C-alpha cells in the first residue's frame, strides 16, 4: 500500500521527526517543548471519504496538475509572460482544504495561486486566459498569474508580495466576525512567507480578537532556492504560532485525506469561535520556484523520490483502486475528461483577443472626482 515517505521529512528537517502525521502515529518527536496550557484541538484524523468524494478529489487534483503542465508549456512557447509559479506536487493541500469549506467562506493566497482558483470552482478558461493576458481573463488581462480574484467565489487573490496575504486574510476574518455571518477566512502562505514579520503581527491580532481564520503554511521545503532549515531557526513551522497562543498542527500535505481530516477539524474549531489555528502542510513542489528557476539547489534524485513515493495523485489513485471504488479504466476516463477541459481552456486562452487599449485607463478608481 502507498504511504507517505518518512525519509522525506526527516531528510529535510534536521533529522527531527515529524509530529502529528496522521499516518505515522509512532513518529512523535522525543523532545518536543512543553506546550502551553491554552486550549488546542486534538490530533486530526484522516478523513474517511465516500466513493464520490474520493473521485471528486482525484478529479480536482488531476485538473490542477494538467492545467499547470499546460501553463508550463504555454510559458515555454512565450504565450505566458512574466512570472509563473506552478503548483504541481502541492495539489492535495488546496483540494483537501477546499473540500470542507462552505460557500461564503473567504480564501486568500500568494502568487502560486492557479490551483487555489481551480479548487474554488473558478472556470479554467478564465484563469488560463488571464495567464495569456487576454480580455476574457478573470482580471481582464490586467492582473496576470499573480494577481487574480473572484469575489463571486470568495477568492480574494492572488497577491504578489510575499506574506501580504496573511494580515489581509486576518482582515477578511475580521469582516466575518464583524458581520457575525458564521463564515471563516483561510489564508495560505509558504514556508518562505512564514519568516516575514507581518505574519506574526497578524497572528497576534487574530488571537487577541479571536478572529475566525485558519493560517495555512504550505511548507514545500524551499523558499525559492533556500531550504527551510537554512532560513528558519524554528523549522517546525506549526510551532510558529505558539508565542501568540495560536495552536498549530502539522499535516501530511501530500495526502489529501490527511489534509481533509485536518481541514474538517480546523474548520470546526475556528467556526466554533475558538480563534485562529495554524496548519503546517508538509508538501513539495516538483517544478522550480517559477518558470525561470533551474532548481539547482536540490538534487534530481530528491525530486524523483518525492514523485515516486509521495505523489498525492498517485497515492489517492492507488487507494481508490485498492478499496475497489473504481478501476484503472474509470480513473483514465476522468483523466481524459480533464485533459479535454484543459485543452479547451488553453485553446480559449490563445484565441481570445487581448484587452482593448481603452482598458488601459479603466478600473483605476471607482468614483468620479
Amino acid at each position, binding site marked *: 500500500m502507498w504511504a507517505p515517505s518518512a525519509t522525506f521529512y526527516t531528510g529535510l528537517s534536521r533529522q527531527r521527526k515529524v509530529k502529528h502525521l496522521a499516518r505515522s502515529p509512532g513518529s512523535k518527536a522525543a523532545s518536543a517543548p512543553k506546550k502551553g496550557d491554552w486550549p488546542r484541538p486534538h490530533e486530526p484524523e484522516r478523513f474517511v471519504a465516500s466513493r464520490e468524494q474520493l473521485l471528486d478529489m482525484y478529479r480536482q487534483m488531476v485538473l490542477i496538475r494538467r492545467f499547470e503542465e499546460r501553463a508550463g508549456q504555454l510559458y515555454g512557447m512565450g504565450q505566458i509572460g512574466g512570472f509563473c509559479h506552478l503548483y504541481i506536487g502541492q495539489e492535495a493541500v488546496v483540494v483537501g482544504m477546499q473540500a470542507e469549506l462552505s460557500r461564503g467562506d*473567504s480564501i*486568500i493566497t500568494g502568487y502560486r495561486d492557479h490551483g487555489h482558483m481551480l479548487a474554488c470552482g473558478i472556470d479554467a478558461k478564465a484563469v488560463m486566459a488571464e495567464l495569456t493576458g487576454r480580455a476574457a*481573463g*478573470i*482580471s*481582464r*488581462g*490586467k*492582473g496576470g498569474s499573480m*494577481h*487574480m*480574484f*473572484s*469575489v463571486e467565489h470568495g477568492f*480574494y*487573490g*492572488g*497577491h*504578489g*508580495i510575499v506574506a*501580504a496575504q*496573511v*494580515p*489581509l*486574510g*486576518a*482582515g*477578511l*476574518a*475580521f*469582516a*466575518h466576525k*464583524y*458581520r457575525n455571518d458564521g463564515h471563516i*477566512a483561510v489564508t495560505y502562505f509558504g514556508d518562505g512567507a512564514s519568516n516575514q*514579520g*507581518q505574519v506574526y*503581527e*497578524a497572528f*497576534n*491580532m487574530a488571537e*487577541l*480578537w479571536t478572529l475566525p481564520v485558519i493560517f495555512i503554511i504550505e511548507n514545500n521545503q524551499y523558499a525559492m532556492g533556500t531550504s527551510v532549515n537554512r532560513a528558519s531557526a524554528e523549522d517546525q513551522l506549526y510551532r510558529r504560532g505558539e508565542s501568540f497562543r495560536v495552536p498549530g498542527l502539522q499535516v501530511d500535505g501530500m495526502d489529501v485525506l490527511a489534509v481533509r481530516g485536518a481541514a474538517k477539524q480546523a474548520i470546526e474549531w475556528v467556526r466554533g469561535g475558538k480563534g485562529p489555528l495554524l496548519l503546517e502542510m508538509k508538501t513539495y513542489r516538483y517544478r522550480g520556484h517559477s518558470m525561470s528557476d533551474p532548481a539547482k539547489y536540490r538534487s534530481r534524485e530528491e525530486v524523483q523520490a518525492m514523485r515516486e513515493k509521495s505523489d498525492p495523485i498517485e497515492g489517492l489513485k492507488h487507494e481508490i483502486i485498492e478499496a475497489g471504488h473504481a478501476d484503472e479504466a474509470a480513473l483514465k476516463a476522468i483523466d481524459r475528461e480533464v485533459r479535454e477541459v484543459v485543452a479547451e481552456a488553453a485553446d480559449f486562452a490563445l484565441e481570445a483577443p487581448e484587452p482593448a487599449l481603452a482598458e488601459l485607463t*479603466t*478600473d*483605476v*478608481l*471607482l*468614483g468620479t*472626482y
Partner: protein
Amino acid sequence: MPQILLPAMSPTMEEGTLAKWLVAVGDVVKPGDVIAEIETDKATMELEADDGGTVTALLVAAGAEGVKVGTPIIAIAGEDEAEAPAPAAPAATPAPVAAPAPAPAAAPVTTPEAATGPTRRQTVREALRDAMAEEMRADGTVFVMGEEVAEYQGAYKVTQGLLEEFGPARVIDTPITEYGFAGLGTGAAMGGLKPIVEFMTFNFAMQAIDHIINSAAKTLYMSGGQMRCPIVFRGPNGAASRVAAQHSQNFGPWYASVPGLIVIAPYSADDAKGLLKAAIRSPDPVVFLENELLYGQSFDVPDGEHVVPIGKARVVRAGSDVTLVSYSIGVGVALAAADTLAADGISAEVIDLRTLRPLDRASVLASLKKTNRLVVVEEGWPTCSIASEIMAICMEDGFDDLDAPVLRVTNADVPLPYAANLEKAALVKAEDVVSAARAVCYR
C-alpha cells in the same frame, strides 16, 4: 519664593486650562504630590510638585482657560524658608520654557466660497471627530481602528468620545503594529467593510506603506474592476513641533504619485470635516493627511450635513497680482504672506488644493490665467514635491499665461533638525513667500 510655572505638557502645547486645584493655601506638599489637573489640547494631565513645602499662594484660579505656558501658577515656600521673604533666587522646579511653536498662526480667512448657512466655531480636531461619528451613525460597516483610538480617546484626541458612542466592536485599539493592522484593515475593506485606519502619525505608516500601495491602491485595477477596497488611512502628517527628523515629514508627494489612491490634505476645519466624510463614503482607498499643528485651530464649520467634493481646490482668498498655491498647513503660511503683500499693494490669490490626487489642475490654471504669476508654498521638501507637479502643470498647460517663472517656497532640503533655531530655519516661512511673490511680480 519659588513659583511653579505652567509647563508645556506636549510638544505642541501653547496654553492650557487649570481644571482643578488639589491643594489650598497653607497645605504642606511633599515632592511628587499631585497639586493640580491641567487640561491640554490633548488630555487632562496631573501636575506634580517637584519639591516639598508650604503652599503660599494660588496664582491662577481654578477653571482659568487659556493659561499660557510659562505663567506662574502657584507659589510654594521651601521647608526652610517658610515665612521668609521672596528669595531672589531663580524660580525652582520644572523650569519650563515656553516652546516657541514654529507653527504659523491661523491667518484670518477670507473665503470667497464661504458657506451661506449657519456655522459654528470648531477646531479641526472636533470637525474630524464629528465627520467620523456622523458617518459611523449613517453606515454600520464604518469602523475605526488604530493605536490608542479607543480607551485613550486618541493619541491626539481626534477620536474622543467615539468608543463611548459606538462601543469596542467599532472603535478598536490595536497593538503597535502598523504593517499588520494596515493589512488587516485592507483585508476587511476587501471583505466589504469600510475601515478608517488611524496612524498615530504618518511617519509610522512607512512601515505599512506596502499595504497602502500594493494591497489597497492596486487591487481594483489588478482585479479588472472586481474587487474594491474602500478604506481611509488617516492621521497627522508633516512637521509637528520640535520632534525632529524621524517624526517630521510630509508624505503628500509620496502618496500623490500613486495611481489608485485618493490623497487629501485639508487646511481648515470645515474642509477637514467635509472631505473626511467624502473620503469615508468614497468607494476608493483614501490617504487622508491631517496636521498636528492644525488640530487645535478653530474655523467656522457649517451646521448640519456638510460634505466637500474630493478633487476640487478652493480659492481661499481672491487676488489679482499673483497666485499662491498651497495645501494643508502651508495655506496658513500663504495667507499670512498674502496679508503682508496686501499691505505693500500686491494682491495675492490663495488657492488651497485640498486634494492632492486627483489634483485640480483647472483651478490652478484658471488662477494663473488671471494673475499670470504663481508661487507654490509647501511644508515639505522641494524635490519631486507637489510644488514640482504644480510647476510642471504650469509649464505644460499654462505656459502662455506666465509672465514670470513659477517659484516654489518649501522646507529646506534637509532632514528636519531639532534645535529651535535650525528647525525654524528649515520650515517654510511667510517672509520667504513674500520675497518670492515680489520676485515674480518684479517688485
